[in-house]
């Protein structure tokens, strides 16, 4: 082995919170994720960016083992994710559940403790205190007893975040937490992300709003079925890389680059 600076860095570096090698997923025949490999550093906020249908949520779900992959390996702190579940926190998309379910905010947050409870044990007073603490961290302590359908979209999102906090994980996956939330919630989320980072936790966020990427994330992962680019934000989040990832479908990219003949003709 040559003693390249890179090799030395790898040797001394702590085990990566998440290491994905050759991950591929296909729905029906069409691959939605092809051969994705990357490794994230501990204590970073990582934004996953890409056009619709690029496989951002799929990447997250496959990494968590929620959907089957057709190939590849996912290691969390050096071990298969199945052995490391307690280290992983997950915030699904808000629309994935029925908010008319008969339960209140505190109860949803308590679900984050279920992974730490035994098969038949009920949440204890300690779990409840912790859940309430998580709710107050997202500014929702006053809504603990509120039936979840009576919360606004942003409040529901914050309840989901509080639930992930209650999981007390080291590596977090968040699927579009900023989608359709009010300014107050956006601010609450970003404060929380910063706090998690300070605690040395790693957060991977599927994100849509390109305007805020540079403010929010240490690293970005550009995805369009295949991994397009991954690295520190200032070096990776460039016009050129975005152009490649989005294939000229970006509104703020130079429109003059698109020739009119590329559009489907109207009539013959």
């Amino acid at each position, binding site marked *: 082995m040559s003693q390249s600076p890179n090799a030395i860095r790898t040797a001394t570096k702590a085990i990566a919170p998440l290491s994905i090698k050759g991950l591929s997923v296909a729905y029906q025949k069409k691959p939605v994720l092809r051969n994705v490999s990357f490794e994230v550093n501990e204590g970073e906020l990582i934004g996953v960016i890409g056009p619709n249908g690029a496989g951002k949520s799929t990447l997250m779900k496959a990494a968590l083992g929620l959907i089957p992959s057709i190939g590849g390996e996912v290691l969390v702190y050096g071990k298969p994710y199945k052995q490391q*579940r307690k280290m992983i926190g997950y915030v699904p998309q808000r629309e994935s559940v029925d908010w008319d379910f008969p339960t209140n905010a505190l109860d949803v947050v308590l679900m984050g403790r279920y*992974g730490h409870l035994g098969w038949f044990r009920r949440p204890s007073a300690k779990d409840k205190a912790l859940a309430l603490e998580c709710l107050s961290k997202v500014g929702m302590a006053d809504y603990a007893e509120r039936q979840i359908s009576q919360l606004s979209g942003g409040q529901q999102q914050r309840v989901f975040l509080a639930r992930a906090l209650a999981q007390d994980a080291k590596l977090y996956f968040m699927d579009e937490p900023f989608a359709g939330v009010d300014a107050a919630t956006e601010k609450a989320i970003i404060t929380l992300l910063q706090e998690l980072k300070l605690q040395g936790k790693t957060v991977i966020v599927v994100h849509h709003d390109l305007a805020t990427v540079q403010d929010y994330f240490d690293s970005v992962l550009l995805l369009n079925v295949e991994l397009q680019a991954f690295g520190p934000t200032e070096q990776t989040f460039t016009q050129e890389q975005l152009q490649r990832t989005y294939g000229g479908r970006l509104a703020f990219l130079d429109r003059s680059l698109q020739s009119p003949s590329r559009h489907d003709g109207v009539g013959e």
Partner: protein
Amino acid sequence: MMEQIWSMLSDPNMQWIFLGCTLLGLSSGVIGCFSYLRKQSLMGDTLAHAALPGICIAFMLTGIKSIGLFLIGAGIAGVVATFGIGYITRNSKLKQDAAMGIVLSGFFGLGIVLLTLIQHGDYGNQAGLDKFLFGQAASMIASDVITMTVVCVSLITICTLLFKQFKIISFDPGFARGLGYPVAFLEQLLMLLIVVAVVAGIQAVGVVLVAALLITPAVSARYWTDRLGLMVVLSGIFGAVSGAIGTWISASVSNLPTGPVTVLAATLLFCISILFGPQRGLVAKRLLRQRVKQRFHQDNERLLEGNVKKEAAL
């Protein structure tokens, strides 16, 4: 009338049947909550209708009218139907409701054909098989009731022990999977419990209406509370009351079939719930809207008056 009730309640056989049907309503109500919240209200109906050919085939193969055998036949048919629905949903563009509709009617059609064949064939003692359509609690014998009681108590025990699990797979199965819960297994288990509840209730309530005991109490209970725990308890109580009323009326009034009376009792409870539920009920909603409207107009008038005064002062 009162004499009839007393005579019924003093008959030890009848007491057992009464207890059995109450427990049946209770356990169906409890399990029904989860299938309702998982948006699988129609699943119980499908499984119940699917049970009929299973019962007929069990009888045709053995020629014996044994509840145990019928339960096995109905159980197998229920499992086949569940797999059928799963297979259709996974391998076609059909949604689950369409798949259930197809499986339900197909199995029930087959059941009716087989039932007719049995009644016109040489199967000896086939009398009473038609009771499985609408149920006849009074026809149950001690051993049937004991089987039913044991089944219902086990169902309630399992639901109590796995309440946490059933709750989380009903609310957010994706998150549950992320926690490492065996979601597929729990979903199958819940389905199995529904099959067992349906099959246990068939003799008392009949295949056509047994599903109502799963759906109606759960939906009614939802009108009274926003907490799952309380909803499950209420649903169980509503189911138990329906079962008790159904058995009592059917046994004391000229041998009405139990199923329809039980379901009518459950439906009455539902009507009361949808009208008078504290927050979601129609009356409560109406009153709230009126109050809001009144307050709005009062405030508005005060505002207008204020404006007029201001203008006058100017």
